[in-house]
Every structure is written in structure tokens, then in C-alpha cells.
């Protein structure tokens, strides 16, 4: 009998730490070592769970008693061409690695999430999007080619010309381990972007503002105060941003030190303790106040006045306060993001927020973004909008919160909307099959049978949704 190294076991959690499981964590440094983990799983009759930086909020990166394949040590740069901006890296490289490699040569990752922590492999497994999703699509749309090691043992190179490419990217790590990625970075002429904040008094203004800036803005995102009611429902603060075509200070702004996030607020308050302050305010009353204060500040300070911000400061809002997720301890939080076609989005999102208010379970943070459809198998995007919501889990609210999410799911499904596995904790199997569709599921099973005939790859999410 093969006995695993007992010291490899660890409690592994999703980023929202509402889901966790004990697994044997392996951190390979080469393709051969990844292959060996698949063999070990076969020998011991266990499953394998692929995990990047562990930034999926729910249960997509955990598996009880499984071998957890953490690829963060596979992050070597295989080649970088400053003339073309083409980067060839191992898939454990993070978004942070990408911009740190490219920026001084005038290149920026074409798609970034709100945190720079995710690995490329994990980010492609979930096919992440950024604030420019409506313009450039998802991360998968930027890839030139990639290598995937299947549990069957084949190392395949896939390009956007291969049908399987569209299954592996977005496949939630259930088809094979992405081990290498070649990607073209976006050429930029400044390390800053021009940012325009616009205060929005309600849903109407939110969507009107998105439509107004959609034709030419490079990025759009809006924060929504989910405590706003009546005529102020949907109030918040929209931000559009543009790359700078011409920056007299480009030599300075493209340097890494210009991009460093400060470690204090206002020059004296250490950010490392901000989460402790947030934790005290992290209740319905405190967050009602903070959301109101943020909205009011947005209407007074800087409304309609463009400013320059570094690419890092604008892009990685979630990295602005270190360890902010700890403010949600001890029961954690869930992130809920639904994607709704353009015409239906105002109605559905307004109804979602009303349901939250009726249940007195308002999201403490709401973020609205614009998207465009794509051809990936487990795609989340539609030609429309998404609303991402953070909900605190408490000792007593779990059942009510899940019920609320299920009711919000129904609204999304009725409107032909979709969901995003990186942020999901509450979907039921019927919800997943309803938005994915039988055709996509059949195609997934067909690829799964070829790539992973022993069904080694799984995850908490895959089991919850009956995907494997």
C-alpha cells in the first residue's frame, strides 16, 4: 500500500474561508513532478484538486482527502520579448509577476483581476475578467498558446485554433493542469491611467453612465451601495479609465517603484492594521454607515474631475488593504457574482438588491461591470452586466443567506444570465446545468473522457454541482 507523506496534509480553504477541507498538498516544480502527482493519485485511489493561488472564493480549489496540486512554485519565465511583448511563462506565475516583468518595457497584462495574486494557471482555469471585459474579453482571449498536462499523461499544446482550448480555459481545472502559457501583453505608454470618477444617484444613472463611456473608455467599473433604497437604490460611484497615449513622465511612471502601493494611509496610518479596524465596522450598521459615507464622499470629492492613478493602484483595489478578508473572520464571506444580459440587467440587479434589503442581508460591497460574450465552454460572460456582491457569513445567517442567493439565482436564470465558478458558493446542480446548457455539459463530458478517463480531477465545486 502506498502511504502518503502524512506531513503534507493541510486544511485548505477557499479565499472566503466559508469552505475548507483537508487535503495532501503537493507543490511541484516541474511537469514531471505534476505527472508524478497524478500517478500517486491513481496508486492511492484519490482525487486531485488543482489550486493556483487559492483566490477562488468558494470551494473550487479544495477537495476532501484529495491531493491538492498547488502550482505556485512553477513560475519560471521561459522567454520574454520586449520588442513584441510576448511572454512565455510557467503557469504558476502570477499576474503580479506579469506586470513586474513587462512594465519597464512598456507592457501591462491585457486582463487583470482586482487582485494581482492569482496564478496564470488558476486565472485561466476560471477564465478571469477585468474592468475592461467589455472591450477585450477574458484572460483566455489574450493567450497565444498553452501547455496542458492531462491526467491521462499527455502534454498537449493548445492554441485558440483548437476547440479543446476553449474547454481547458474556463474548465475550472477539471480537465488538466495548465503548466505553461504564452501570452501577449498590452503595450502601454505610461504607468498611469487617467481616471474619471462619476457619482451615480441611482440605477438609471449607473447604467446610463456605463453606456455613455462605453464607446471609448478602456476600463469601466462602478461601486454600488446596496443599502440605497427607493429613489436612491443603486446609488454609487462609477469610474472610467483610459490608457495615456502620451506621458511626458513615462520613463518614471513605468518604473516599478512608481507602482508600489504605499504601506500607509495618508502617510501615517499603517495599512497592515486596517483590517482590524474594518473588522470592528464589519456589521450591518457599520457597513451601512461606511457605504453611505463613501457615497456622500463620492458626490462631493472629485466627482467628474479626472485624475491620474498608477496602473497598479487603479487595477488592484483588492490589494489596497492587506488581509482585508480577515475582517470577515471567523465565519468568512461569500462572493456572489451574476451576469445578466444588457436589457434585463437594470431590472434583475435592482430586484436582487431589494431581496437583500427585505432579508436584511445587504451586501457590504457591490461592484458593477460591463461584459461581452465569448466562446469558452464554462463561460460566465454575456453581452451585459455583472453585479459582484460580498456577503458576510455569521454564525446564524448561513441558511438565510443561501436562501437569498437561491432566490437571486432564479432571477438571473429567468433573465438568461450566467454565473462565475471562481466566485460561486451557492449554486445548486440544477442552477449550473440551467445556465451551462446540456450542449456545453455534453461537450465537457466528452473532453473529460479523453483528458481524464479515470476522473482524477475534481473539486468541492465540481462535486457540489455534479460536474464530475
Amino acid at each position, binding site marked *: *500500500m502506498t502511504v502518503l507523506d502524512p*506531513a*503534507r*496534509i*493541510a*486544511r485548505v480553504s477557499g479565499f472566503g474561508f466559508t469552505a475548507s*477541507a483537508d487535503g495532501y498538498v503537493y507543490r511541484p516544480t516541474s511537469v514531471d513532478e505534476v505527472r508524478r502527482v497524478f500517478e500517486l493519485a491513481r496508486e492511492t485511489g484519490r482525487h486531485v484538486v488543482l489550486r493556483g493561488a487559492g483566490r477562488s472564493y468558494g470551494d473550487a480549489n479544495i477537495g476532501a482527502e484529495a491531493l491538492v496540486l498547488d502550482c505556485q512554485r512553477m513560475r519560471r519565465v521561459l522567454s520574454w520579448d520586449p520588442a513584441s511583448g510576448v511572454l512565455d511563462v510557467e503557469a504558476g506565475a502570477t499576474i503580479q509577476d506579469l506586470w513586474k516583468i513587462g512594465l519597464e518595457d512598456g507592457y501591462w497584462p491585457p486582463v487583470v483581476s482586482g487582485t494581482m495574486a492569482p496564478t496564470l494557471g488558476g486565472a485561466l482555469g476560471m477564465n478571469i475578467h477585468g474592468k475592461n471585459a467589455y472591450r477585450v474579453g477574458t484572460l483566455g482571449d489574450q493567450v497565444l498558446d498553452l501547455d496542458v498536462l492531462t491526467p491521462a499523461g499527455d502534454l498537449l499544446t493548445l492554441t485558440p485554433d483548437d476547440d479543446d482550448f476553449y474547454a481547458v480555459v474556463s474548465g475550472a481545472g477539471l480537465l488538466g493542469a495548465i503548466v505553461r502559457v504564452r501570452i501577449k501583453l498590452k503595450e502601454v505608454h505610461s504607468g498611469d491611467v487617467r481616471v474619471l470618477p462619476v457619482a451615480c444617484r441611482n440605477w438609471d444613472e449607473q447604467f446610463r453612465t456605463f453606456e455613455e463611456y462605453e464607446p471609448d473608455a478602456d476600463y469601466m467599473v462602478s461601486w454600488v451601495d446596496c443599502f440605497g433604497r427607493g429613489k436612491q437604490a443603486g446609488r454609487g460611484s462609477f469610474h472610467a479609465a483610459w490608457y495615456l497615449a502620451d506621458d511626458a513622465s513615462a520613463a518614471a511612471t513605468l518604473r516599478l517603484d512608481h507602482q508600489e502601493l504605499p504601506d500607509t494611509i495618508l502617510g501615517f496610518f499603517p495599512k497592515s492594521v486596517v483590517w482590524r479596524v474594518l473588522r470592528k465596522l464589519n456589521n450591518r450598521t457599520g457597513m451601512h454607515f461606511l457605504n453611505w459615507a463613501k457615497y456622500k464622499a463620492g458626490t462631493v470629492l472629485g466627482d467628474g474631475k479626472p485624475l491620474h492613478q498608477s496602473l497598479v493602484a487603479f487595477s488592484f483595489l483588492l490589494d489596497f488593504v492587506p488581509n482585508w478578508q480577515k475582517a470577515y473572520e471567523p465565519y468568512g464571506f461569500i462572493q456572489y457574482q451574476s451576469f445578466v444580459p444588457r436589457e434585463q440587467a437594470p431590472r434583475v440587479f435592482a430586484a436582487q438588491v431589494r431581496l437583500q434589503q427585505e432579508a436584511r442581508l445587504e451586501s457590504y460591497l457591490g461592484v458593477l461591470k460591463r461584459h461581452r460574450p465569448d466562446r469558452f465552454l464554462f463561460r460566465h460572460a454575456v453581452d451585459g452586466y455583472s453585479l459582484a456582491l460580498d456577503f458576510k457569513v455569521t454564525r446564524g445567517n448561513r441558511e438565510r443567506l443561501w436562501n437569498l442567493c437561491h432566490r437571486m439565482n432564479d432571477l438571473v436564470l429567468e433573465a438568461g444570465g450566467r454565473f462565475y465558478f471562481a466566485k460561486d458558493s451557492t449554486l445548486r446542480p440544477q442552477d449550473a446545468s440551467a445556465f451551462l446548457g446540456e450542449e456545453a455539459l455534453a461537450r465537457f463530458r466528452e473532453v473529460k473522457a479523453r483528458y481524464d478517463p479515470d476522473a482524477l480531477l475534481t473539486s468541492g465545486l465540481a462535486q457540489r454541482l455534479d460536474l464530475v
Partner: protein
Amino acid sequence: MTEYRAAIVVGASSGIGREIVRQLAARGCRVAAVARRADRLAELAAEDPDRILAFSHDVTDYDAVPGLFQEIAHRLGGLDLVVYASGAMPEVGAHEYDFAKDRPMIEVNVLGAIAWLNQAAIRFENTKRGTIVGIGSVAGDRGRCGQPVYNASKACLATYLEALRNRLARHGVRVVTIKPGPVQSEMTAHLHLKGAMPAAEAARRILAKSGKTGEHYLKLGHRVAFYIIKRIPSPIFRRLKV
């Protein structure tokens, strides 16, 4: 009372161990019942086949423990409680010094416990959670005329568990030493104990106390009595008939 979802009970075919299995299963916990006697285990598992899994194993087969421990946790889909309830206490005469009788007491009560609980300790130290329960005995509190090696084995177990507790407390792991007094079981049947606690009641009290790390007696009277007994000076203690 602490809720457990997946537990291993070693020494599950009779007495306290069997009752702990039954009570955990009744509370919705999936339990691996580990013991030597396969027929007894099969009967126990048949009582609640969805929740009780039987694993036949001789605790003196130390080399088999790491593999079996992993297999059980795999089958259970996780692990948050390990109870070591195996114990041997053969009848020993007042003038008997029989190594053949003494040896299994050390093997079952001490070495078996170390083999199993070391595995639990590695796992729980790494996962930063979990509960280890060792069934010691009041007999380990002093060396007495009647059962020198049994006394020594339970003292060894108690000290081992204390050390585990001190190692693992900082990792969020509970290590609980239970010192039952007389309990009605096959192991104690030959002693014809008066006022012995039924095994089901002992199991209930053990599970209730498992939520608090430390050393526990099952009766207040025992706690008081053994507080005193442990402090009786040796020159006096050796003249007493306790």
C-alpha cells in the same frame, strides 16, 4: 456538546469504545470502528451501516497503522476526532510477575496508543484542528500492589497525552485524557466491581468532556479522591490497602 462529523474509535468492539461509536453515530457522525474482532465489528456496523464503518485491525500491528489511518480518513472524507479506547488488563495475582501477561498491556495500552495517536497528532498539527481522546485510567495515578504494569501503562499513556496536549494546544488541537474509574466492561468483568459505571454512561460523559482539552475524571468523587491519593506520601501509601 461538540459536534463531530468524522471520527475514528480504536478499540471499538466492546465496552467504552463500542458505546462511543454508537453514540457518535446516533449524533450523525461517520465513525470508523477499529478493533481486532471482525465479527463483533460487523455486528456493530450493522446497527447503522450508513455511519459505522468497520476496520479489523490488531493494534500491535504497528507498521500497518500509517496506511490504515490514511485509508480510514479517506473513506470518512475527513477526520475531526480520534479516540483510543483499546486496553488490556489481564488478571494478575498479588505475587505474580508474569512477563507474558505484562507485555500485552504495554503493547496495547501504550505502544498501540502511540502508533495511532502519533498519526492523529501529525494530521491535526498540520490541519490546525481536531480532537484526540485517550482513555487512561485512575489506575495510572499511583503504582499499586494489584496491577503494577497496568498502572505503569496508564501512567505512561497519561504522560504521553499530556505531552501531546502541550505540543498541540498552540495548533488549535484538543488532547483529552479521560480517567474513568470502574466501568462495566469485558475487561473489568473478572474484577466483580461494585458500583461500576455502565459503559454507555461512561461514553456519554467522555463525549461531553471531549470538548475541553485537559485531563478529566468522570465523577467528581474520583477527582477529589485521586487529588488526595496522588498526594499521599510514599511511606504512608505503601502501608495502605488501596
